Structure formats: structure tokens, C-alpha cells
């Protein structure tokens, strides 16, 4: 029997491509996120959802951003379409592995150092990480009944397998960032952490975010109303973040 390599899963020389959708992120965390990503991924694919600030220009400043598409009209309210568009754009670059990143997410050093080990194997096709919602700053994360994302794993790193059946649920909001089809494939739940700074903002900014959620999903059709309300909690339970050695 010929000793052909596995036609689906390479164990070496896998290229890692980050994929992002961004919208008016120039004055937030986009620059440090792109800087960090540039240290450990091979390529970055970005869909700019009709930003009106300098987001596109900032993206172009990073050499690893090989593909950038700016939409003329925002698809923010058609999230399913936007996710699918980004996915198809990323796949068109023939990646080996894709890392789905938001413009306010930072992989801890240990995660970045483990990235090649995570992708150069043939036992599993996706990796889940523990995400932590930082609250009101970058020193503490929130941990209470409505804010428990760090207690489970979030799938953000996937092997791209041409020919597999990929699909997204047709939802308007809270669409999974990667095709749901990966749930059928074996995955690895890594004890590696990701810092999410989406809520590491001022009380006023959090209130604006609350209003946006309530406007988009007033009946809790796509998410939990209880969680939306908890954005306004006066004294949420916060836990100090401790860096691990890489």
C-alpha cells in the first residue's frame, strides 16, 4: 500500500490565517490586535463592514493583511450574511487553518506560543479556547451567573477542509463566528485563554452598548434579556486577571 500522506489533514507546514470582520475600530483595540496577530499568524483576511473612520487605512498598514474588502453598505443587521461573506473570502485564499478573531480579542502568550503545535497535527479539526470578558478596564474580568463565557470553550481555530459541508444558521444576531458544521468534527478544548476587551470600556460606553442590544433584540429573540439587563449592574463580580508564564 503506498504511504501517501493524509489527503485531508497535514501534520506540518500548515499556514495559519486570521479572519476578522471590523467596523469603525480605528480608535479602539484594532491596532494592538493586528500587531499581536502579526506576530503569530501567516496572513490576515479582513472584511471592513462599511467603516467611516480610518479602519481600512489602519488595516492596510499591516503587511500580513493580504486581503481586505471594504463593504460599501453595512451588513451589520444581516449578521448571517456578513459571517458567510467573511468565511467565503477567507476560504478563497486557500488557508490550512483559520483563526476567527474580533477586533478586541487578545490571545495570551501561552496560547500564541502553542499555536503551531495546535495546528500541525491530524487528530482534531478545531480548537476551543477560554474567553474572558474584561470589565471596565484590562485588569479584571467579570464572573457571575450572566457572564460565564470563560467557563466553557469557544471554537475559534479551525482546520479548513475543502469539500466539507459548511453552513451557518440563518440568524440575524449572535451568529456563531465559524460554520456550525465543525461541531460534527473532533475538536480539542485547550486550557488556553483569550482576553476579550469588548466590555473593558467606560460605564458610558457600556450603556451605549446596552441601548444598541435592546434596540436590535428588544424581545430577547437572539440572546438573553437577563444578560442585556446585567450590563447595567452597579456591582458586578469582578476577578483579577493573572498572567500565566508562556
Amino acid at each position, binding site marked *: 500500500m*503506498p504511504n501517501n500522506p493524509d489527503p485531508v489533514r497535514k501534520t506540518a507546514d500548515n499556514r495559519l490565517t486570521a479572519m476578522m470582520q471590523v467596523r469603525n475600530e480605528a480608535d479602539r483595540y484594532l491596532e494592538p490586535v493586528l500587531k499581536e496577530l502579526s506576530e503569530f499568524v501567516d496572513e490576515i483576511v479582513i472584511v471592513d463592514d462599511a467603516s467611516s473612520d480610518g479602519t481600512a487605512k489602519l488595516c492596510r498598514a499591516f503587511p500580513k493583511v493580504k486581503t481586505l474588502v471594504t463593504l460599501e453598505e453595512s451588513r451589520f443587521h444581516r449578521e448571517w450574511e456578513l459571517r458567510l461573506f467573511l468565511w467565503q473570502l477567507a476560504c478563497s485564499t486557500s488557508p490550512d487553518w483559520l483563526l476567527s478573531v474580533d477586533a478586541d480579542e487578545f490571545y495570551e502568550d501561552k496560547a500564541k506560543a502553542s499555536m503551531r503545535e495546535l495546528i500541525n497535527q491530524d487528530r482534531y479539526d478545531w480548537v476551543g479556547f477560554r474567553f474572558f470578558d474584561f470589565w471596565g478596564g484590562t485588569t479584571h474580568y467579570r464572573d457571575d451567573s450572566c457572564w460565564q463565557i470563560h467557563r466553557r470553550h469557544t471554537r475559534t481555530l479551525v482546520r479548513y477542509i475543502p469539500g466539507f459541508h459548511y453552513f451557518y444558521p440563518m440568524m440575524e444576531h449572535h451568529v456563531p463566528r465559524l460554520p456550525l458544521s465543525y*461541531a*460534527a468534527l473532533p475538536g480539542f478544548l485547550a486550557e488556553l485563554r483569550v482576553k476579550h476587551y469588548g466590555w473593558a470600556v467606560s460605564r458610558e460606553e457600556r450603556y451605549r452598548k446596552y441601548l444598541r442590544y435592546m434596540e436590535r433584540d428588544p424581545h430577547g429573540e437572539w440572546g438573553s434579556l437577563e444578560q442585556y439587563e446585567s450590563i447595567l449592574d452597579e456591582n458586578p463580580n469582578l476577578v483579577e486577571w493573572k498572567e500565566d508564564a508562556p
Partner: protein
Amino acid sequence: MNYLIFSHSGWGGFPYKRLLDILPDRRDVYFIVRVDEEEESGFPVKSLPLSSIRTLDSSEFTAIVASPYWIQTIREWRPKHLIAALERCPDEEETNLWNKYSGLLAGYADLVITSSEKIYLEQCLRRDGVILLHGDDPLSYGMVTNPQDQILFLQDYEALFVQAVSALNRGNSFEQWVKKQWELRERYYRSLNEQIRQHETVNYLLASYLYLLNDAAAEQYLTISFEQMLLKDFTGCLHSHYRFFSAIEAKKGDLAKAVRIYAISAFSEAERNRVRLLESWLEQGEDRLVKAELFRVNEDYRAAIRLLKEMNSPESDNLLLQNYVQTFRWEESLPLLDQSRLSDDDKTVREVLQGTVHLIHNERHLAVRTFLRASVRDWNVLSRIAEMLQLEQAANRVMGEGEKGHAE
């Protein structure tokens, strides 16, 4: 045609009484278990003690066997035709024993009937000649006059049963009736799908019948089913659902795509070796081997066996052997094993199969000797002797039902 009925738990628990009323081309119908006179008066059957079957000319009988534990009796008596009535394992029976000997009984049968759709689909993927004793069409599909001159209106599956048994008695093919039932089931699930949209099981069953009917639309419904499984968090569907696409593509003839789909679903070392083998066959243009193997790994043994029986090479014989073993056609597998070069493990397997065939043929001593010989290489084979005793006890139980009734 005369019929001889072998029940599992006596006349009272016999689930196919109505079928006895509509048997085609009937002369006498005997039941191997006591039938109370009062009960008998309602049905045109005669009870017969087991010991009397030797006085019957078996070549004039079609046997309907409703318990796997009659297998030795049936192999000894050799009726002209054998209809195996397969059902789910009763609570009081040992599941492994029941399923194994049900499989072996079906392997010898000319026609399989069952009221379980799960067993039905499994059998449809294993062999020709399977009739489901269940239908969902409220319309009548014909009528017959029973021996008491009563007119009976037939449901769809009853009409198909009558046609299939009639074809069997006449030595004709019953393929058209089997196909007709697939079409009826496909139509039923299509209408159900229109009522309950996006249901994973309905779409899966619809895809299964379309697949049996060689209809490429199977892919469309399997896709819906696969997506619904994941949306409902039933994530263990890579083999049951996703891999099924490879069989559909193989039927359509896109073998490169089919192998690719199989490869995506392949994780164990054995599966990955199989991917390499499939790819090398693809490169060599051995398309029929590729197809047959993809059918086999999708449990469509029927399609695999059909292809492989037309071939004649060491590779095709080896695949045919695996299909025979997995579908309990063990007697047919033995000559293929004999012409192969066997490893020690293969020799053990061969002796286990041979020992079981001896047992089914009532060659008890040969069976024990064969199992003991194999146990020298692998002591686990000794469990076959325990299983042999289990089968004998089970067989005595079903036989005792008949004799007990007559002794009273």
C-alpha cells in the same frame, strides 16, 4: 403452496395472524404450536406437533419463521422457501444472541418480513427481498377472499406482502414489489416533510429511501438532516450522516468526491489505511472496488455484494468475504476464506464461523471441536461454547412451547 409457521411464543403471542388469512396460493397452513380450538376456528390454520414435521414433504412448503431460535430445525428440515419474520429482541431474551441468530436466519431466508422500520432499512441495505409489515396509506390496495369466503381489504403493505410471497412461490423476482414499497415509504416521508419541515429524522429517512431508489435528491434531504442535527446539538453525526454523502456520491459516480468525503470522516488508523487503499484503487482505475468499499463502509452491503459478485479478483473476493461476514452469510464466506492466505487471527475467525455453521447444521460435536481448536489460539473463543448452550436452551424453549401444548 403449503405453509408451516414457526412462532416465537405460541399462538397467543403470534403477531402476524392476519397475514395467515391472506397468504397467496394456499393449500394447508400448519402452525408449530398448539392453537386452541376456539382460537383456531377464527383462523384457517391447523396445529401440528413439532415431531410430525418429518412426515411432511418439505419441498412443498414455505416456512414462515418468527423466532431465530428455530434456525437449526429449519436448516435440517429445508423447506422449499424460507420467510424470516424479524422483530426487535423481546425483553426477556438475550439481545446479542437474538440479534446474531436473527441475522443468520435472515442470511438463509428467501424473503424477510418485519414490522420494524429500523430492521427493515437495515435488511434493505443487506439483501434483496425485504417487506415492511407496516404502512401509512389509509387507502386500500386491493382485496382477497380468505378460506372462509370473507372479503378482506388489503393495506398497502399487505398487498405487497401477498405479491412478494406469490412471486416467491412461483419462482419469480419480487424486486418490483420491494421497489414499490420504497416508493410508498418515500412518498410518505415526503408528505410528512411537507407538514413537519426541517426535521432531522424525517429528512434522514426520506434521504434513505431516495438513496435506495437511486434518486440523487437524497443529497438534498441528507443535507437538511445533517444541518438540523447540528442545530439541535446532536453532534455525533459525522459517521451516521456526513459519511452517508460518500455513498450517495459513489452511486452518482463521482468517486473522487466520494473518497474525499469518506476521508474527511476518517480518523482511526484503520479508516486512514482504508483511505490510502481507496486512493490507490482510484489511481489504478479500479472504480468498482472503490464503489463497493464505499458502499460497505456505509453499511450498504447489498449494493457492495451486487458489484463484487460480478468481479473476480483477489481484492474483490476479499471485499466480498467481508460483506458476507458482516451480513451473517457465513456459509458463503467459508469458501472465500479457504482460498485466502490466512493470518492466525483470520484462522480463528474462520473457525468461529465454521463452528457456528456446524452448530446451525446440528453438528454439535463438530462445532465444539472447532471452537476448542480455535480457543488454543484465542481463549475468548470458549465463550462460543457458552453461547452454544444458550442457543440450545432458547431453542428448547421455543420447541417446548409447541410440544407442551400438544401434550396437554
